[in-house]
């Protein structure tokens, strides 16, 4: 069916757009940027903040353009004295209840509110409230909230509720007492928050930020008794450049390695290598469950946000979870066992830092079941992409001038299969590459499983393997995981293998990734562009299946034994247990 088109004029420019388009989007197509604050496309479209108001001829009052649909013959003015005055007054009133410590704020130059004040020409705040005190809530392992900087746009609430179906934060009380918080104003550490951090990237101000761990990492780097080892996650190499003004989708692996080395890390390894181990273990586990009649569908366990969601919201699926540790945790475990032994260093003197696209990884590193037999926690500190960018900036490095470096060899070699872990469907494709080769006994099978690629929220496919049709499903964003799990639970959906990632689009769109204002997030396919860079790197790699990785082969042959064997289990696996969702104690 042909789309119905609508003609209107915006600021005297004739515009033709499909019916149902909002005035804000129609204006964009005419090159007019209407300022907005609470608007986040497809997530928060509530017309609440009144910054995006426009004059529509014939309308009774100013209209919120982010939710106002176009109609035939409509005449819109976006830049009249009335509009400008209204926007300025609204913003001044918002600022009157915002603690303005802009110079020392964690959001600083990336604050949408600050940018808006500049864009709207606010040169004084007549109603500034200088008595506002910080309202810090920092009980969770991954996040700090300061409601004195919250402007009640509800982007975080909508993200938590609609994208993630977690809904641990809401709007409490009313009037001047209105504030964002958990039910019964419990601390975030007391509720079923999955630590995904999507609320942070949705927040326009400094009200939400990751818990910064750079100070402790810098302290370790300056401690002569510590041997400090670092490893970045697959997706970080295709997003870090954005923090330094590079286009979305730039692959900066080489510069990132150089930066890490110059920061003083003793060894710069790659979590990609650990991702190859994950495939060896998870692939073996899948084949085992398939052939021995184990619990199916097998569900991936790479995403700690998903793990927490499963434990609390879908405890009956905990037996379906792969017992594999996540690549981050396998990385730490291998560094503090295999590498420690080879290098002759006491694992207790090794300090492992991971660079992650993720805030839930900060929570994962502290989970008790991750503790190794030697008493060590595999990873000591987990930094987000944003924190690494801050360290690089503070060290005075001109990122775009950095030469391309190479990972240290012992745990620094990886395959294309590991690289694509950073995108939704990547773990599944990587696993299939190895599983198909193992089950058919041939390396001539398919290499690219394009059915499971792409940014769609739920993808499914089935593959003919010797003696068995394997049905797989890939979902990202916990709202999509919920749809799939409800289908499996009710018996409507049948799968053998499922990949879940907590964040929509997978790790490339994780809660620890570079921030962009709503004007960019709403109209740029961040997930698609970042994922494309990963698939491009994969296609150019010498080895593209995890079991072909020479490091993997060497470690199994000389240290771990068989995939899924005793030693591999001790180091690379763990047990997840159902957890209570609510608590009612005081």
């Amino acid at each position, binding site marked *: 069916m042909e789309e119905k088109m609508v003609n209107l004029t915006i600021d005297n420019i004739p515009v033709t757009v499909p019916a149902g388009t909002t005035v804000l989007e129609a204006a964009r197509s005419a090159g007019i940027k209407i300022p907005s604050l609470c608007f986040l496309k497809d997530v928060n479209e509530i017309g609440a903040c009144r910054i995006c108001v426009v004059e529509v001829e014939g309308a009774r009052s100013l209209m919120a353009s982010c939710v106002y649909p176009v109609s035939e013959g409509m005449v819109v003015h976006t830049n009249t004295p009335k509009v400008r005055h209204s926007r300025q007054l609204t913003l001044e009133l918002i600022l009157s209840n915002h603690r303005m410590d802009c110079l020392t704020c964690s959001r600083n130059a990336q604050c949408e509110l600050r940018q808006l004040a500049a864009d709207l020409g606010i040169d004084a705040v007549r109603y500034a409230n200088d008595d506002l005190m910080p309202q810090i809530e920092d009980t969770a392992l991954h996040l700090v909230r300061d409601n004195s900087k919250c402007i009640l746009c509800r982007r975080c609430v909508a993200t938590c509720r609609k994208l993630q179906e977690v809904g*641990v934060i809401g709007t409490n009380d009313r009037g001047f007492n209105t504030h964002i918080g958990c*039910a019964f104003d419990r601390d975030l550490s007391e*509720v079923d928050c999955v630590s995904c951090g999507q609320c942070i990237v949705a927040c326009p101000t400094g009200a939400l930020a990751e818990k910064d761990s750079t100070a402790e990492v810098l302290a370790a780097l300056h401690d002569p008794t510590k041997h400090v080892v670092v490893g970045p996650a697959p997706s970080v190499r295709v997003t870090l450049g954005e923090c330094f003004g590079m286009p979305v989708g730039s692959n900066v692996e080489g510069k990132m390695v150089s930066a890490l080395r110059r920061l003083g890390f003793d060894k710069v390894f790659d979590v990609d290598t650990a991702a190859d181990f994950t495939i060896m273990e998870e692939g073996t586990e899948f084949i085992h469950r398939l052939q021995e009649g184990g619990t199916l569908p097998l569900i991936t366990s790479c995403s700690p946000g998903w793990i927490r969601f499963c434990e609390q919201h879908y405890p009956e699926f905990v037996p379906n979870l792969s017992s594999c540790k996540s690549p981050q945790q396998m990385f730490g475990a291998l560094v503090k066992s295999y590498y420690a032994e080879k290098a002759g260093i006491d694992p207790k003197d090794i300090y492992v830092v991971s660079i992650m696209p993720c805030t839930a990884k900060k929570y994962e590193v502290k989970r008790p079941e991750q503790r190794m037999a030697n008493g060590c926690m595999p990873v000591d500190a987990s930094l987000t992409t944003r924190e690494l960018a801050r360290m690089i900036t503070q060290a005075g490095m001109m990122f775009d001038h950095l030469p391309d470096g190479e990972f240290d060899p012992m745990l620094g070699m990886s395959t294309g299969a590991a690289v694509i872990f950073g995108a939704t469907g990547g773990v599944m494709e990587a696993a299939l590459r190895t599983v198909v080769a193992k089950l058919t006994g041939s390396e001539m099978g398919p290499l690219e499983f394009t059915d499971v690629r792409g940014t769609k929220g739920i993808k499914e496919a089935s593959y003919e393997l010797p003696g068995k049709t394997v049905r797989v499903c890939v979902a990202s964003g916990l709202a999509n995981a919920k749809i799939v799990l409800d289908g499996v639970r009710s018996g409507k959906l049948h799968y053998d293998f499922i990949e879940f990632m907590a964040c929509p689009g997978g790790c490339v769109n994780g809660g620890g990734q570079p921030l962009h204002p709503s004007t960019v997030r709403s109209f740029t396919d961040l997930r698609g562009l970042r994922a494309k860079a990963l698939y491009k790197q994969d296609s150019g790699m010498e080895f593209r299946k995890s079991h072909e990785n020479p490091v993997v082969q060497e470690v199994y042959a000389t240290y771990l034994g068989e995939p899924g064997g005793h030693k591999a289990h001790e180091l690379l696996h763990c047990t997840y247990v159902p957890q209570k969702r609510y608590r009612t104690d005081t």
Partner: protein
Amino acid sequence: MPNCKTAVPYKGTPEQEEKLRKVIEEHKGQPGATMPVLQAAQGIFGYLPEEVQIMVAEGLDIPLSEVYGVATFYSFFSLNPKGKYQISVCLGTACYVKGSADVLSAVEQKLSVTPGGITSDGLFSLDACRCIGACGLAPVMMINDDVYGRLTPAQVGPILDKYIKMG
């Protein structure tokens, strides 16, 4: 914060819970179910403690934060039960200009309770109300059906002691 958890332990009976389950079943899946279910829940239990709100959230398959948001937005809903003695201090115009705010803080200090709250022994609940039509006696406080007029903060203590003695 006055709207947080109540100070008295939850004492819902299986009969009450069964009643609530039936109401939830009737409204489940309907748009806008939260309000009527919460209204019914308050009718059954007299207030909306955390335990009841969790039952509503799980029953309707919506986040607890959403239930709590609704419960704290509308002044009709109460997170605290009423005490054996319900205190209302009038903050209407006449009482207010005659100093009822000081009377209210005297009650708050004496009982360690804020408006909308209840003492942990369940004896007193406190509300700030608007005009009760006894402006001639301003400032006015009611305890259940007893009216106390022309109050000074100093009189509050002895009055409350009387009720504490009765237990």
